[in-house]
């Protein structure tokens, strides 16, 4: 399915897609910075604050940007000659984005648990600290950067569907 978009709509969607995708990467970098502070800071208030703020960051920044990037990217591909399944770079980028979004959505549960622990003064700092957010952000970053590289370089290769 390929429809032709009028140029201004195509440019608007491209702008929205680039903004949300790059914004997602930036938000993951910020999340990684927070997570690093969470495992390294010696100040109890800072450590608890970091894990508390991760939850709204995940729900109000990461998840919306991820979903918008995915949805806009799909609409964009269907409205241009690239298509969604015609070129390997589009297909691989789609798989990467779906995977990253799915892991992010599942991970919000963990972030919520960590925030609950941080909010409870009865829980010791050792139980509040957790390397999991740092690990997940560190894994997400190269994935998102790879997706950006694919979008910029658009390496050749047409799928069987696209021939």
């Amino acid at each position: 399915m390929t429809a032709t978009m009028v140029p201004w709509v195509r440019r608007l969607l491209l702008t929205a897609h680039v903004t949300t995708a790059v914004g997602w990467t930036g938000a993951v970098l910020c999340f990684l910075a927070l997570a690093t502070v969470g495992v390294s800071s010696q100040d109890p208030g800072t450590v608890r604050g970091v894990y508390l703020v991760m939850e709204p960051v995940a729900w109000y920044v990461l998840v919306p940007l991820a979903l918008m990037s995915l949805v806009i990217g799909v609409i964009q591909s269907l409205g241009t000659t690239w298509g969604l399944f015609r070129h390997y770079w589009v297909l691989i980028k789609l798989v990467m984005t779906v995977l990253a979004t799915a892991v992010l959505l599942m991970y919000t549960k963990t972030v919520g648990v960590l925030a609950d622990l941080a909010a409870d003064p009865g829980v010791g700092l050792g139980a509040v600290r957790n390397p999991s957010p740092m690990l997940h952000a560190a894994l997400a970053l190269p994935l998102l950067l790879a997706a950006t590289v694919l979008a910029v370089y658009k390496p050749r290769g047409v799928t069987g569907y696209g021939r």
Partner: protein
Amino acid sequence: MADTPPGLPTWVKVTAIITALLVAVVVAVMLAGGGAHGPGQHVMSGRLAGNIGYGHG
């Protein structure tokens, strides 16, 4: 794009190999951790333990 030769392009093959290796490493690390992949593996002591589910983490 019409001049693309049939079959998987080299960059796709390289990407597939790297992805497979990374997935194998991640699975190995998860298995080495006892398979308990979630916040509960770190925080199952204390009074919050009853409220902690095994989400992805």
